[in-house]
Every structure is written in C-alpha cells, then in structure tokens.
C-alpha cells in the first residue's frame, strides 16, 4: 500500500506544485494590474 501511495505521491507532488504555481501567478497578474492602474492614475494626475 505504501508503495502505491508513493508511486502516485512522487509525481503527484509536481501536480500540486503546478496548482501552487498557478495561484501564485494569478496573484502576480492581479498585482501587476493594480500597479499599472496606479501608474496610469499618477500620470493622469500629473
């Protein structure tokens, strides 16, 4: 049983890390948008 769990868990860790990366990138994209919007507002304000 432990051997079967390992067989799925070893490669499965990459799948989990794929999801982790996906969520980090979504957050990055959101921060990026906010940053760009802030820059635009600052330019208009000037």
């Amino acid at each position: 049983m432990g051997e079967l769990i390992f067989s799925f868990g070893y490669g499965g860790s990459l799948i989990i890390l794929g999801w982790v990366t996906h969520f980090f990138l979504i957050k990055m994209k959101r921060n990026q948008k906010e940053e760009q919007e802030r820059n635009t507002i600052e330019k208009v304000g000037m």
Partner: protein
Amino acid sequence: MAFIIGIIVSFCVYVSIGIYLFRKVENSEEYYVSGRSGNTLMITGTLVASFLSTVSFMGEAGFSYDGYPILLLILVIFNASGYILGVFLFGRYLRRSKSLTVPEYFGNRFHSKKVRLVAAITTILGLAAYLVAVTQGAAVLLAEVSGVSYSMALLIMWLVYSSFTILSGAKGVMVNDTIMFFLFSIATYLSFPYIIHSAGGFPDAITKAANLAARPDLLSWHGITGPNATMGTPWEALAWAVIMGLVWGAVIAVSPWQSSRYLMAKNEHVAIRSGIWATISIITVYLFLHISISTIPTIKADIAPSEKVFIWAAMNIVPTWLGVIIVSGIMAAALSSCSSFLQLIGSAITRDIMEQSRNKQYTDQQLLRASRISMLLISLIIFFIGLLQPPAVMWIGYFAATLFAASWGPIAFASVFSKKITKVGAFWSIVAGFLGVIIGESLGKLGVVLPVYFNPIIIGLLLSVSALIIGSKFGVITREEREFHARILQQPIETDEEKEMSITRRYPVYLMVSGVMIIITTLIFYYWPTTLAL
C-alpha cells in the same frame, strides 16, 4: 585510460571557458552576478548543478544502495518543492533588491552592518565545510578512477575549480554549470537502461531487487528497518525523510548557493521559470538514478564503501563510453558545487566583510582584484583541510546544509513578509539558529541520542524563531528599513510584460504534465515490478 582521457578533456573545457570569460568580465556586477543576464536555461543549469554534487551521486547513491532508495525519493518530494516555494516566497524578492550577495540583502533589509556581517560569517563557515566535503568526495572519485594518490587528486580538483572560478567569477560558473548540468543529467538517464539490463533486464531486475535476501525491504517505501538497521521503525524512517526533506526544501529556498542564482536572472519571470524547471529536473534525475542504483545489489551486494556504487557501475557494468560520461558527470556535479561555493565565499569575504569592516568603498577594479585574491586564499585553506581531514561526504554535506536552513530560514521569509522584525531580532535569529545546529550536532558527538523529531535542525529552528520573536521586541524599525521593504514588495513591470507573463503562465501546465508522466514512469518502473515480487 578512457576514463582519464574523458576527465582530462572535460577539465580542459571548464578551464578554457574560465580563461575565455576572464577577458569578458569588466566589472564587479559581471563577476558577482554575471551582469544579471542569465536566461532560463542557464539559471536552471546553475541551480541544479550547484545543488547536485558528490553528496548526491556518491553519498546519497550509497544510502540508496544500502537499502533506502524510496525513502530518499520521499525526501526529494519535499526538498524539490523548495525551488518553487523558494522563488515565490524569497528568491524573487531577493532579486528585486539588486544586491550582489545574499548577506548584502540582509544588511540592506535591516539597515545593519552587524546583520550583514553575521550572515557573511555563517556563509563562509557553512559553505567552507560543505566545500571540504564535496572536494573530498570528488578527490576520492578521481583517485579511484585515475589511480593517482588521494592528495594528488585533491590537488588536481583544487587546480581545476579554483582556476575557472577565480578567473571568471559568476560568469564562468554559470556557463560551466549549464554544461555540467547537461553532462550529469545525460549520464543519469543513459545509465538507467544499461544498469537495469545488467541486473537482469526489465522488469526482472527490479523484481529481483525487491526480493533480495541480502537486502530485505530494499524497495519497500520505508527501506530496511529494525534493531540493526540505520532506521529503527518504518514510521521513524518516514519521519526522518519528511523532516530532512523539509530541511532540504528550506535549504533550496534560502541557502546562499541556491537563492543567489536568482540574482543572476535577467528578470523575475526567468527566475520563476528556472525554479520550475529545476524542480522537474531534480524529481526526474533522482527517480532514474535511485531506481537504477537499487538494482545494483542484485549484481554485487558488497561494494564498500557504498558511496562508490555509481562509480563501480560506471567502471564495471556499463559500456566504456557511457562509463566515461558517468564519471565525468559525477566530477562535473562536484566541480559545479565547488565553484559556486568558492565564488560565494570569496564574495562574502570581499564585499560583505572587507569592504564593510574597513568602511570604504572599493573601485570596481579593486573589488575584482580583492575578490580573486580572497578566493585564492580560501581555496588553499580548503585544500589543506581536505588533505588533513578524513573524507565524510554525506554527513558533512547534510550538516552544512542544515546550518543554513536553521539560521537563515526564519529570517529570510520574515524579511519579506513581516514589517515587525527589527535588526536585533534578525541578528540573534541567525546566531541562535547557527549555534542551535552546532549544539545539537555536538550532543550527538558526545553520545547523546536525540529522537528523530528532535534533530539538531529542529533545535536550531526553534532557537532561531524564538530569537526572532524575542529579539524583535527590542530596537526600532528605521525609515530606511521601511523604504527597502516597500521597494522589494513592489512588483517589477518588464518592458515586454504581457508576453513574458503569457509564457510564464504556461509553466503550471508543464509541471502538471510532468507530474502525470512521472506517475506513469513510477508505476511502470517501480510499482508494477515490485508487485510481481509478492
């Protein structure tokens, strides 16, 4: 003879690259962080090459051969995660700081020379110990293969890695690391079918290994356990693998020889992509290496010391041309780590200690010269220590790595995510973590047996976190610290941001597809043959 020629040719390539790039290094930024021009391939190459060393291809291969291949792979699940968590939680912020060294980042983050100094001292002590272990491992290998004495092999190793590192700094290290990364990856993948074939073919080789009377439980998830084994019970073995995996994950995330690679990345996207490719590479290389190593006891069960198992395979059971690639690949893994360690020690001495303690700013040319001289001196000291101390590849390697997990782990993450950490807390956190590991290890040397969940690294981590919390009750946070912190939290927008982001957003898919392929490979080459043994 073929092995010697192969090694000489590879050595000549590395040194030639060092000499060629020597003329291209014009300023300290190129010498310390390769001009921050590294692309995804090169940062991946240098991340993996500086991580894998004789500890992996000799120490851990021996551990696998002794009866713990799957336990080691369980450990790898946790340590490989350190690349992705590391780059997202620390590495990319470190890169944004535009520092030339990691101690410089800590010094600037807490606006404190004391914090920078203590980070530099731990870098020098920890990496020097690791450098000794890796150099010794490579010298043992070179002596074995070439027939020269151990001291002569140590001298040759020293000449090769110190020459190209001193001459070309990070620029040469990054290029050579990438070549070395390909060399040992190819060696691992190509050796797999040959070793399996020699051990009886697929699936018989793995089935035989799972049924081997001399190594009962060799291929079970927990490896060989019991009163006379290295591991007491299966659950203790699992606890060890998880704890050491998490420790190594922290090492990958924050240690100077891994996190400093992100300082060389062209932009933040390159840093993230490299962390992802490094994870996939480590998971794949380890799977193929340790499954093939686990079948070698069915051919020869008494290789001593077991650290030589992969070298024995290279010299005895694979064709000569492949043996040459394997031996050169192991040498490459060792040399790449040695060069990274030496480069980081030299940078810490020159930039973080000499320049800071004398309170003067060197010109670029003075800094380059001072870095080269300090690297030469430190490499000579390492050479003499290696000559006088008996080789202990895996133990020293693990000890040195855990030093960084305990002393740098808490402060590295807190430096990014906490606004309440003061320089007092940062300083004592590094000191307490470092001393905690040393005290824990010393207790072991004095004969005190600590339970697996009270490993020296746990002692170090507990002390480091406590010191961070208590120490941060003292001192004030200055305006410079706040400004620096705000700056590293600000996400950089690249010129071609939309395009860069669309490329990076494909990477989670690469990870998931690789995961599915690894599951299929593990089921075919491990699970199915072991069920035939039942």
